[in-house]
């Protein structure tokens, strides 16, 4: 083919995003679970930090109907499409070191929803970082406006996710450690105070006995 014979100089340059910045930006938490009643709003804080990035960070949210979907390319819905209201700062102009981001969620409809909050730093060199936090929203309770026909399927899927939440990944081991210690402490305190009450009763009995004996001695001389 003539075209094949023809020398064409094609310089292909791909800039892989996130490689450099991915090491410097971090989020906590990386997933948020919220259980709400319809029209109830709940807020969570996300801590965004970086060791070496300064500048603008844009924030956006994306959503899906499929609770088991983890491919963000398939998150083609907006919160509005699902009846979810989400509020957060859309942009940080002068990000440096760290930033606390408050995310508030509510929904008019019952159902389970999955989304992601994506953080995109500015780049003058066409290097862009996109990291994010998962958003799992469980809205339950009676509401006449419920129109979500996929609720049954989604509830099944969210139950699986909730199971993961009940057995959290190594990122949250705080609860078990602390609660076990408190259980032991409470039982010890109960035993201690029971013994104290018994002793108090015995001592009170002794006091009463001596008082009666003294009165009898004063009255009758024996």
């Amino acid at each position: 083919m003539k075209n094949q014979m023809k020398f064409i100089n094609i310089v292909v340059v791909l800039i892989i995003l996130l490689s450099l910045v991915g090491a410097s930006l971090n989020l906590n938490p990386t997933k948020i679970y919220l259980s709400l009643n319809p029209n109830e709003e709940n807020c969570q804080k996300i801590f965004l930090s970086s060791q070496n990035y300064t500048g603008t960070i844009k924030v956006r949210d994306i959503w899906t109907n499929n609770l088991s979907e983890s491919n963000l390319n398939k998150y083609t819905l907006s919160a509005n499409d699902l009846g979810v209201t989400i509020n957060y700062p859309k942009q940080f102009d002068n990000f440096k070191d760290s930033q606390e981001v408050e995310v508030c969620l509510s929904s008019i409809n019952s159902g389970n929803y999955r989304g992601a909050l994506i953080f995109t730093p500015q780049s003058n060199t066409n290097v862009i970082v996109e990291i994010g936090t998962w958003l799992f929203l469980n809205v339950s309770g009676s509401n006449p406006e419920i129109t979500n026909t996929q609720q049954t399927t989604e509830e099944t899927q969210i139950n699986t996710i909730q199971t993961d939440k009940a057995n959290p990944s190594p990122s949250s081991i705080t609860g078990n450690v602390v609660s076990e210690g408190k259980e032991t402490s409470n039982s010890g305190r109960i035993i201690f105070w029971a013994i104290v009450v018994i002793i108090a009763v015995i001592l009170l009995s002794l006091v009463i006995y001596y008082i009666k004996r003294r009165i009898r001695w004063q009255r009758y001389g024996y």
Partner: protein
Amino acid sequence: MKYLISLALIAMLFVMVSGFIGADVDQSTSVTVLSDLTLLPTPNPLLFGTLYPGINSVQSVTLTPGNSSLSVSVNITGDPLMQSIEADFGTGYVLYSGQNIILMNNSPITFNTRLSIPSGTKQGTYNGIIVYYVMEAV
């Protein structure tokens, strides 16, 4: 009377001893572990060099995660030619853009990417950007 006094003394002694032996010392402990969203794609930039129409170029790519397992979604923007880049994860070449890759913590993966230049492609420089959306694997 003696019985009551003895009982009280024994009870007091028990409380004193249990105060040393059975008392609970509360020591709360907790830790907060952050997820590591580090991802290192190499080479960076990914260069396919100078090609002729009808020719393809294969480049090896390595994705190296940090200490957390990651869910990585790939999206290529830019010239349509660049959006046609394919990747072979062991089951044959598929369109790289749109893929979702689960990376286990501290376990890099290496695979081939391929760019095919269709016949009739005009001479010029074609640029693209590969965006990796990095999330914690759940």
